[in-house]
């Protein structure tokens, strides 16, 4: 056990799984870097250095730099998975899914069903998501609601380094296509991460904190925002449960419903665009399945329905922060009861 960054945790998960299973191969743009160039090999290890060092250990047959052709190589990962490899493909930024989405949602995700259960497609697609990098509209999106919408995909969104390692190892061992989303703002964040390999099962939420007044569900990095808000609120006498679902598909509906049965109040923090996102998904689940327990409106803390802006001051306004979560929690705490709720 030692302190490792989110980046290192992912690198270690990849390395350990590649050692364990020769069928695991990596592919993506610059995942090694320097292919065909005169200078250093392994020059990049991914655009933010996450896969650095792996080509040195596993060679270019298993760590494949790709051309700028996402449909071809993400589709190749699907075809390879269906025929015996266990590829981990990197899409770099989730924002690029628009040039290769067909291979993900119509091919990989549907093989098993369309083919009557006779296909197994064990692939992982890793990608960065999220705002905070001043990278503007085309490099800052979340988009996991889109993948969550698609039957046949699993969607994993780790909230910390420890989570990232265990969930990625699980993803690689999983026999279904897995979308693995890495919040780029977290890469340098460190925490204690075991050296040995371990898995965190899908569909089992993590209650990062337990309280009695309000349930807060956060997605990915928003778990941290939720925890920060809960800290402040605790000092003010409001006791929150914070739930990290870890995977949005499958979603651990039981943990969320159980918690709301106890607290009677729900706030959801989602960094994704607000329409048809995870906040609406979880809210709808609870409004259908735990309505009787609800003592206040469900509140969603999300960005506005606008593309991610470039200017730092605007981007900071765009992303949900702890202050907004605190305000939402206070609002549901102050709610008088069932009558006259429409504010």
């Amino acid at each position, binding site marked *: 056990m030692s302190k490792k960054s989110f980046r290192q945790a992912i690198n270690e998960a990849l390395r350990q799984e590649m050692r364990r299973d020769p*069928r695991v*191969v990596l592919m993506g743009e610059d995942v090694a870097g320097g292919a065909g160039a005169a200078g250093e090999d392994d020059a990049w290890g991914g655009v933010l250095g996450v896969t650095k060092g792996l080509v040195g250990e596993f060679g270019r*047959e*298993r760590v*494949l730099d*790709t*051309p700028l*052709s996402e*449909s*071809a*190589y*993400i*589709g*190749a*990962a*699907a*075809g*390879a*998975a*269906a*025929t*015996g*490899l266990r*590829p981990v493909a990197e899409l770099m930024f989730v924002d690029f899914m628009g040039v290769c989405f*067909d*291979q993900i949602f*119509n*091919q990989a995700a549907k*093989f*098993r*069903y*369309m*083919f*009557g*259960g*006779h*296909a*197994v497609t064990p692939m992982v697609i890793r990608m960065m998501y999220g705002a905070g990098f001043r990278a503007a509209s085309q490099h800052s999106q979340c988009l996991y609601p889109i993948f969550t919408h698609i*039957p*046949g995909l*699993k969607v994993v969104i780790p909230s910390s380094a420890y989570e990232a390692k265990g969930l990625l190892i699980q993803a690689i061992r*999983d*026999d*279904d296509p897995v979308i693995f989303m890495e919040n780029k703002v977290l890469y340098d964040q460190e925490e204690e991460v075991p050296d040995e390999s371990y898995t965190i099962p899908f*569909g089992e939420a993590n209650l990062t904190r337990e309280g009695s007044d309000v349930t807060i569900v956060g997605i990915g990095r928003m778990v941290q925002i939720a925890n920060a808000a809960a800290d402040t609120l605790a000092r003010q006498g409001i006791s929150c449960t914070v739930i990290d679902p870890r995977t949005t598909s*499958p979603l651990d509906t039981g943990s969320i419903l159980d918690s709301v049965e106890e607290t009677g109040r729900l706030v959801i923090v989602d960094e994704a665009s607000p329409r048809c996102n995870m906040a609406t998904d979880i809210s709808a689940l609870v409004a259908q399945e735990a309505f009787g327990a609800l003592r206040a409106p469900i509140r969603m803390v999300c960005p506005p329905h606008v593309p991610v802006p470039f200017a730092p001051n605007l981007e900071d306004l765009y992303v949900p922060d702890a202050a907004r979560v605190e305000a939402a929690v206070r609002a549901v705490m102050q709610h008088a009861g069932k009558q006259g709720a429409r504010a």
Partner: protein
Amino acid sequence: MQLNREDLLRAYRTMRIIRDFEERLHVEFATGEIPGFVHLYAGEEASAVGVCMHLGDKDHIASTHRGHGHCIAKGCDVSGMMNEIYGRKAGLCGGKGGSMHIADISKGMLGANGIVGGGPPLICGAALTAKVLKTGGVAIAFLGDGASNQGTTLESYNLASIWKLPAVFVVEDNGYAESTAASYAVAGTQSDRAKGFGMPAQVVDGFDFFAVHEAAGAAIERARAGEGPSLIHVQLSRYYGHFEGDGMTYRGAGEVDRLRNDRDCLKRFRSKVTEAALLDASELDSIDHAVAEQIDTSVRNAKSAPPPTEADLLTDVYVAY
């Protein structure tokens, strides 16, 4: 690859099965009993069979919306296919896929595909598996002239080329994508495109089984030898509409009739092998009869076979969830 008697009989039988399968579907579709969209391969048999004769179960193919011929040529069970097309539980995909999604991965058949251009990237993956796991296998993408304009296809040419994958791209150019002529929609030539991505290409007459067989043999041998991908531009034609129900008013008068009379791959095969005294006409006749019966039985069975059960709606989405 030299073709012995067995091979010739197999080639003829396979082409005949495809033809009868499709001709019969054409008739059955008109009765309204077959659900969904059905794209018939009749007329193009020499391509699927000429290519797949070189392949074994460890080799993979990816097919298209017009997939029945490729499935049969790659060894998919014919009655399993017929059941699938009728939406039956006993179908190759349990009735969940239908005509556009027939697959049998155990046979190396990675699926018909409802997305034009869906297959070529997958084939890069199958070829990568062969390369990394050193299976000795090759991977073949069948695609149409229309699909040759899809970005997914063109990217795959490049990827296969730079990775020197054991892959072959078989462009089945039947002159049309739906009602749009290739002469309108395809700029340049298929061979020049291959060259643009550093691949060799061959142009072949797709009515001639032997020509396809030879070209495919060379391309596949090259791939197996680790020399990388290549492209085969197969020029052929479809006898029916884009899908069943298409009136084909866009085709020239008598176009199909002329092709059927003058160039048909089955007729041509028959006259060639009988004239060269490689096979007897009677042998071929008895294949014809046996195949007719086989197709008839498979249709009769499919018509009365049970559909999937209600529970099947929810299964097979994930291995585990």
